[in-house]
């Protein structure tokens, strides 16, 4: 025997009436604040303030440790020391591990133990610590669902709903959990759209960290161009892809003070993950590119793709190098741009290309994994690659065109 839905609710109603008594609720500061953060008139300024505050925190935290601390250690002590004591100068081993013997900063030396370690520990580590701290606070305070409610109307225009903001924010830390969290969206269409949009248009914390360190003056423009792309292609995909985009009804949980212990535990897990997964990939990336360089593969590839790079995208042909390592790590790829001689606008274009041309391998594997549940690997991958190809050519080419119109490219 089982009850019908109606019977069940009737029984529950009865139980509740007889056992639960609701006293009046007092108005507290917390409940007033809770109210203010979801009403658009007050909630949107509040959200802007919060996000701006976090962004400033991110910039100054990462800047403090990177510029004030790691840059000095690496440039003044580690690099000259290593260049001095490492034997076999001029050999391939020296080239791969230490890089350029004449380099005076750790960005440009480009050895595994110089640039590789510097990018991973000196730049990316402070950036992701700051980012994960912010994301954990957003999650644990209960602010995330409020943000979801606020942006709901807006996201409906591109076939998503408010809760799609969760994968978006997570992706700003790292695309991998971003893609993973698309599972919470209801339909295959939404999951597919979100996966592809975020892996193309949302740069991860590590990449943003390198951008802020290398080209702080352009980071804002790049982020803006990517965000606009997110919505433009979201709008198009919503029209093109069949499927439903349902409305969502949700409760907004009350604000809670984040538990310090929980925050600490989450941060530790993520930082441990960074040491285990990210650092080996950065070092491997540097090593691989150096080997390809020594083997002449890079020169060959640059020449092969030169026409596309110089005419369509308007960037130097050497940009092929960061695009290769970008498959391993996007942060590394952006760092490699420092070694290429180019104009400011070309730098912007190259960073945009690095962001959109292909997801990094970790994100790619997560898309494959999640694709199984969102309409089959082949369909998801095929669809993704198609969208990707179109986006790279259109959005990358459009930037070049904009540059020409503005007279800067």
């Amino acid at each position, binding site marked *: 025997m089982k009850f019908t839905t109606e019977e069940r609710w009737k029984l*529950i109603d009865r139980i509740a009436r*007889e056992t*639960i008594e609701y006293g009046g609720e007092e108005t507290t500061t917390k409940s007033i604040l809770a109210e203010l953060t979801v009403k658009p008139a007050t909630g949107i300024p509040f959200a802007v303030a919060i996000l701006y505050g976090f962004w400033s925190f991110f910039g100054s935290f990462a800047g403090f440790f990177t510029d004030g601390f790691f840059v000095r250690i690496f440039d003044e002590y580690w690099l000259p020391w290593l260049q001095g004591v490492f034997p076999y100068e001029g050999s391939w081993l020296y080239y791969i591990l230490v890089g350029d013997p004449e380099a005076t900063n750790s960005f440009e030396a480009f050895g595994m133990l110089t640039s590789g370690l510097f990018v991973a520990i000196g730049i990316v580590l402070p950036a992701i610590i700051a980012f994960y701290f912010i994301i954990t606070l957003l*999650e*644990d305070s209960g602010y995330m669902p409020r943000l979801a409610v606020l942006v709901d109307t807006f996201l409906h225009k591109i076939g998503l709903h408010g809760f799609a903001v969760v994968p978006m924010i997570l992706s700003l830390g790292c695309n991998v959990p971003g893609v993973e*969290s698309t*599972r919470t969206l*209801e339909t295959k269409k939404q999951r597919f759209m979100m996966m592809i949009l975020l892996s193309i248009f949302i740069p991860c914390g590590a990449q943003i960290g390198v951008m802020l360190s290398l080209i702080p003056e352009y980071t804002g423009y790049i982020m803006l161009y990517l965000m606009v792309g997110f919505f433009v292609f979201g709008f198009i995909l919503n029209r093109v892809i069949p499927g439903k985009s349902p409305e969502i009804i949700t409760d907004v949980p009350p604000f809670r003070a984040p538990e310090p212990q*929980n925050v600490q535990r989450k941060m530790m897990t993520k930082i441990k993950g960074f040491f285990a997964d990210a650092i080996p990939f950065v070092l491997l990336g540097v090593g691989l590119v150096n080997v390809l360089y020594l083997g002449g593969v890079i020169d060959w590839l640059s020449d092969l793709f030169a026409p596309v790079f110089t005419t369509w995208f308007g960037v130097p042909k050497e940009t092929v190098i960061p695009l290769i390592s970008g498959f391993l790590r996007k942060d590394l790829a952006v760092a490699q741009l420092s070694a290429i001689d180019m104009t400011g606008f070309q730098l912007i274009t190259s960073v945009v290309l690095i962001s959109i041309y292909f997801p990094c391998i970790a994100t790619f594997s997560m898309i494959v994994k999640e694709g199984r549940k969102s309409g089959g690997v082949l369909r998801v991958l095929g669809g993704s690659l198609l969208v990707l190809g179109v986006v790279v050519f259109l959005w990358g080419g459009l930037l070049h065109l904009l540059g020409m119109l503005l007279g800067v490219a």
Partner: protein
Amino acid sequence: MKILLMGHPNVGKSAVFNRLTGANITESNYPGTTVDYTVGYTIIGGQEYEIIDVPGTFSTEPKDEAEQVALDILADNEDATVISVLDATKVERGLYLSLEIIEEGFPVVIALNMWDDAEKRNIHIDLERLRKVLGVPVVPTVAISGKGISELAGQVPRAERVDLKELKRRIESL
């Protein structure tokens, strides 16, 4: 012996899980972080139990991937005891799922979590009456601070299947 922890998203299920197992897993209070389920172990009264932190679900009719996972886990563990975690400030809503699980024939213990929030909001719940009418143990908990968790664990061996006809009769004669 197995225990399934079930409940709506955001009722503090993962917090209860952490308290019961002391396992090193993390929790968040926005929907959807518990998609992958987590397994831990605990000993209650000398007996070892495997505890599964089942993804949050609203009912036994799945609406998304995570809910499907939850139901698959339920179907795979017919001999388990279920701890049904409810938000003490929204008991009516949570009871729907508890009732469905009871109907499936599982022995159930109900945890009224976030009991402190209910108190703050002046919600009074007659625990004794609730226990009697449902015929299952009902334990108030505050998982985030650990309050009520050992009592909750202690009630697991006492949970029994509920006869539905009797249940209906008891409710109607309230």
